[in-house]
């Protein structure tokens, strides 16, 4: 198992290298001058020139690239061009908020989505099934930022039940602040997982061994959960992995709407201001997460389905 993990991590290195290279190139191709963005459009030529020199933007591109790669290898992502804060500090300050939001949204999505899928599959073509399918349709159709604004206006502005922005300080306050943003992200998760669970479970419930279990007199609950849902978990696990990744990317819009700190909001601001160092650091964090989540999913397969073995 350990060898398998090491091999998979080794495979990730070229991927991360490629991501870093692509981000580096993409940012340099994008029109826009970080010096002008940092100093403002009234900046004089000599101020701009001095800024570029100070930030190492006046050296040839290949040199900037190798400086950047060298920095990454020593975990030095440089400093923000705008605030001069080390990128690692910015990431360390923002990452916990994004992780917290992602986990809360996933928990809500699983709690709502999987039972809904079971309910729909066990009541096929009846009212609960129609209801779940309708919910899934709506869940897929509503964009995160729109739903977020809707929830914000209803529950924070009009009813005053939740804070309008920020992330809170102590545990209770953080949970209070996270509810609406997490619910926004969880909505589409629940829709996706509900639909996926329904489809997978329906397929499993039609198998011979399920018929056999029923013929042997097993109780319906046992048939559904022990024989049905357990065997349907493999595609659901894949779905969970994909869902986790989309929650991470969805957090960008939600962090903006709810004015929560996080890697997404940090990246959006950095892209608008052409803060190269922060963009590169932020994208690397996302890339590492994608690699780790994929790896985690591979490991979960082994646990969920004993037929899958590490080869």
């Amino acid at each position: 198992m350990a060898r398998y993990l090491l091999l998979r991590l080794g495979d990730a290195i070229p991927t991360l290298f490629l991501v870093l290279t692509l981000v580096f190139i993409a940012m340099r191709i994008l029109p826009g001058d970080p010096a002008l963005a940092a100093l403002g459009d009234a900046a004089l030529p000599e101020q701009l020139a001095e800024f570029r020199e100070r930030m190492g933007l006046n050296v040839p591109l290949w040199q900037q690239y190798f400086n950047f790669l060298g920095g990454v290898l020593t975990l030095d992502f440089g400093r923000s061009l705008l605030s001069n804060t080390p990128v690692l500090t910015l990431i360390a300050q923002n990452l916990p908020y994004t992780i917290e939001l992602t986990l809360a949204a996933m928990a809500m999505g699983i709690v709502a989505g999987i039972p809904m899928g079971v309910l729909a599959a066990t009541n096929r073509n009846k009212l609960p099934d129609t209801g779940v399918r309708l919910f899934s349709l709506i869940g897929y159709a509503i964009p995160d930022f729109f739903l977020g604004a809707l929830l914000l206006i209803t529950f924070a502005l009009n009813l005053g039940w939740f804070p309008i922005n920020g992330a809170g300080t102590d545990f209770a306050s953080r949970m209070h602040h996270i509810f609406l943003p997490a619910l926004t992200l969880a909505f589409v998760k629940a829709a996706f997982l509900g639909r996926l669970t329904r489809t997978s479970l329906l397929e499993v419930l039609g198998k011979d061994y399920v018929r056999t279990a029923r013929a042997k007199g097993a109780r319906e609950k046992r048939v559904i959960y022990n024989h049905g849902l357990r065997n349907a978990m493999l595609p659901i696990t894949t779905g969970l992995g994909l869902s986790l990744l989309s929650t991470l990317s969805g957090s960008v819009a939600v962090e903006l709407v709810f004015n929560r700190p996080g890697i997404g909001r940090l990246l959006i601001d950095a892209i608008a201001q052409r803060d190269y160092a922060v963009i590169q650091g932020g994208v690397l964090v996302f890339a590492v997460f994608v690699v780790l989540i994929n790896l985690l999913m591979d490991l979960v397969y082994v646990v969920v389905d004993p037929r899958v073995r590490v080869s």
Partner: protein
Amino acid sequence: MALNRRSFLELAAATTALTAIGVQASHAQDADTLRIGIAANGPRHSDPNLTTQGSDNWATEQMYEQLVRPDDGRFALKPEEYLPTLATEWTQSGDAKSWTFKLREGVQFHRNYGEMTSEDVVFSFERAIKEGTNRTILSNIESVVATGPYEIAITLKQPDVNLLGTSIFNNNTSIVSKKAYEEIGGEAFATDAVGTGPYELVQFDPEFGTRLKRHEGYWGDKAKIANVECVYIADTTARTLALLSGNVDIIEAVRAPGWIDSILQRDPTLKIDMTTPGSFNTLHINLTRKPFDNLLVRQALMHAIDRPAVAAALAPMGGVMAGLQPDFFPAGFKTEDLPAELQYPYDPEKSKALLAEAGFPNGISFDSLCSQREDYSSTMLIVQELIRPAGFNMNLIIGDHTAYHADNRSDKNTLAMHSSSYPPIPTQIYFQQLASASEVKADGSGGGNYSHYGVAMPGIDDLLNQALTASDYETYLDLCKQIELQVLRDLPLIGLSTLGFTAVRSAKVDLGYEVESGYARWRFHRATKTV
């Protein structure tokens, strides 16, 4: 402990329920805290010598002071309108090159960093000259010398009759504590500077914003509200909702047509604070691009733009510019005071006739770049519609704000809108946008003269140099007025409108004064709040 399906679901349900029963009220407000929602993602600096993000100055405005300041809520239109602040009196030599300032005694720095003396003032000026973000303007200062514990002398390289406006009332030359800088260290000082203002820094949080508290040792009237929090909320909807819900007391407004009306519809009790003029929205005409090298075409364009209509569309934030200065600024003209041929009233028929005379009876078509930022795009879309009937078919290419400025700086635009805030020091806009020394360059190394004025055709360099070296204020003003007229004759740059900086305030907050003009931030030390 094994985590089975049931316990997993129970745990997840408990987590969900816990998040739903938060205990903190969302309207946690008290009369002793003023919260302002700022239109940016997070603070970058609290050192007044380093701020480049305009929004950060909401906090620095509360924490730092200069030797002189205008009264709250307005610009000083003339040198005599500056009020003693950290200096109690000052004198200038006849040639406007030597200035002395007598400092206020007993001024205490925040956090017990002691009394302000001439040593701190000299240190602050030297730091601004060597390391500040506004070194070009301060480069005229030859030396700043302490001539006593409470007196300094400033010697200039060239006369500056506007020294109080250009260099003394300047964010960079805010007075900071030398002792604090040495103790805290230069890098940490960037987010932990120590000044003398009515509020002092409590917390600088790059995610949340800045928290300030009343400076109990302040030399003047102490701030009425004990705490100020600058909360950064970049998203317009989130910021608006924060104000409407009572989460913040003041927000920076969105400077787009109709926005003020829409928020007042939602809550008519809200108060609008606005500076006039705010930004100067100008339109550079690239003199190196045909047919705009032809004066007749530029005159046709001027007659095709209904400038009062542009200002009216941006109401109540918009203001008319007859030239490049608002009419109440020292070198500004009212339209009716200009010579008839330089008034350029809106007249599409005359515009068409001028275009025909220039050899374009069927009009002209051209591309123009524009920023997607709301103040740029709304203004340029209005201009596009206004000039179309006269025969100007402008294809607007709207793009990212940062890329737009980079393109302008690389001489890629034909009609380039520019929006900047200027104090009542006319030469600043002339130098930045019209001087040949500021000519834009294709490689990006040039400045903000996107018209190539003074290079593609004779400009205002001689008049500007005379103004910049004038030793009396009346001569300076007279030369600036000559520049205004020259620019209106040559038309390298059109003053489209002014656009006031605006903040929306809860009726529960009284600022203690009226906001009339000034930079895009104002002080809260006289504010009161009722709950």
